[in-house]
């Protein structure tokens, strides 16, 4: 069976050249870069080279990059580290209703610690009203945290404009750019961000490594206390091989970005147009144009996302869903909820996130097998072609899609 991977927003394969570059650091170059002897010296240069590679991709100084273990750690560090460091100054944080749980749940944790958090709403396309953001800023506001791109819809937020607002009011600005870095150009100077988080496994590096950009002069408390690594900003023995992999993945994606983002966008558009023209009663989730080049999120009325994914899986296709049944909770995606997507449509939201390995043949294969799967599940659904109204509780929310 063919294996078609269209879940690159969940994770990407480690690029072969990245893995090659990492392997020596598990073998002969095994040293701890904090050691003074030959074994340590042999690897400390590799960590600093990777720091430069990451810094180049997002246009900052190498000293402004701190390596962390994952995107969630970076977001926790940015938000908790700011909240603790600036507690004297204020206790108000502004974020959005559509952030990744790494941000949302960290903010909820801080609410229990006495901070006040504003969760900005989004419109039906998942976009923010910047006037609302500006109006939410008070003298107590110490942090604005807005993701650069949404993981479910691919929506791109106007980071430069938000950065300008943050600068105007002298409020620190953090962005979770885990889905963005490596896919489209990211320039922390142009965007006026103070803190930016990226993750290795979203751009062809392995899981277990990420980085946070901390603008020079940004006062932060550490999340992980211990040794003096990363200029006391983040303790813990360096994940040398992972860091080397992250550095190379950043360099490669920077070099290829102009070409790959256009090519992947063309594949995504082919998939989108193909689905739209072949299947009635579907809904595009997210902004029609202000989106990452690789992401497509569509709801198929009357059917549930996990059933769709299982059928895809049987045909070798990997995608993901905002359905409750795929998240382990009983609620569908909070992103769909914030966009006021009907609850049944939210359960059927399906995300295709393409990557550098996808081909036109793969897109065409998906377009070939998708319509019969949708039709089969619809014919199995008590909501499809229904004449009588629904009697069960909460079913009144179901509406026909046009």
């Amino acid at each position: 069976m063919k294996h078609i991977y269209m879940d690159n927003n969940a994770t990407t394969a480690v690029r072969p050249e990245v893995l090659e570059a990492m392997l020596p650091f598990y073998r002969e170059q095994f040293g701890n870069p904090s050691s003074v002897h030959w074994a340590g010296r042999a690897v400390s240069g590799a960590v600093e080279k990777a720091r430069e590679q990451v810094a180049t991709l997002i246009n900052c100084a190498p000293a402004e990059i701190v390596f962390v273990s994952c995107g969630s750690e970076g977001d926790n560090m940015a938000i908790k580290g700011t909240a603790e460091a600036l507690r004297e100054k204020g206790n108000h944080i502004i974020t959005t209703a559509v952030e990744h749980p790494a941000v949302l749940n960290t903010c909820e944790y801080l609410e229990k610690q006495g901070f006040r958090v504003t969760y900005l709403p989004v419109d039906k396309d998942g976009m923010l009203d910047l006037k609302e953001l500006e109006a939410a800023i008070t003298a107590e506001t110490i942090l604005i945290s807005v993701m650069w791109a949404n993981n479910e819809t691919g929506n791109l937020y106007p980071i430069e404009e938000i950065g300008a607002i943050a600068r105007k009011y002298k409020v620190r600005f953090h962005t979770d750019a885990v889905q963005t870095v490596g896919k489209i150009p990211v320039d922390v100077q142009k965007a006026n961000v103070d803190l930016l988080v990226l993750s290795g496994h979203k751009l062809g590096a392995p899981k277990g490594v990420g980085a946070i950009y901390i603008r020079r002069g940004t006062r932060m408390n550490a999340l992980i206390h211990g040794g003096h690594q990363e200029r006391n900003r983040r303790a813990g023995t360096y994940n040398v091989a992972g860091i080397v992999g992250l550095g190379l993945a950043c360099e490669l994606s920077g070099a290829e970005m102009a070409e790959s983002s256009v090519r992947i966008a063309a594949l995504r558009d082919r998939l989108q147009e193909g689905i739209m023209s072949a299947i009635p009663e579907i809904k595009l989730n997210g902004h029609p144009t202000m989106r990452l080049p690789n992401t497509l999120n569509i709801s198929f009325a009357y059917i549930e996302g996990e059933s769709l994914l299982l059928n895809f899986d049987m045909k070798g296709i990997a995608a993901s869903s905002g359905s409750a049944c795929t998240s382990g909770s009983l609620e569908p995606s909070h992103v769909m909820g914030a966009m006021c997507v009907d609850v049944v449509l939210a359960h059927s939201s399906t995300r295709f996130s393409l990557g550098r390995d996808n081909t036109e043949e793969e897109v065409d294969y998906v377009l070939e097998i998708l319509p019969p799967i949708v039709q089969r599940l619809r014919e199995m659904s008590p909501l499809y072609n229904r004449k009588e109204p629904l009697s069960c509780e909460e079913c009144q929310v179901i509406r026909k899609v046009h």
Partner: protein
Amino acid sequence: MYTEKVMDHFSNPRNVGEIDNADGVGEVGNASCGDIMKIFLKVENDVIKEVKFKTFGCGAAIATSSMVTELAIGKTLDEAMELTNAAVAEALDGLPPAKLHCSNLAADALHEAIKNYREKQG
């Protein structure tokens, strides 16, 4: 995460569809958790002769619907009322813990359909 039996019933569901002029129809569900099940019955001499279902829901919801129809066919109405959700899950060699709420619906839908039949009989 699903057993072979669940995947078998999910990919080849038994007794999908509707019964015209069904003797009993039961529907249960909750759109917000993503499951709605509808069961149609044909009854002769208090014995279930035919069962069909339609389900909106995840893999477990479809598999439990399919399994409950297999378990119900040939049973008397009293026997079918004794059929528990746990028995449906067990017949599928178990369900992942997070999915147990789905299996609660299949037997409930069957019971609703039987109640509907009995109400119609007066």
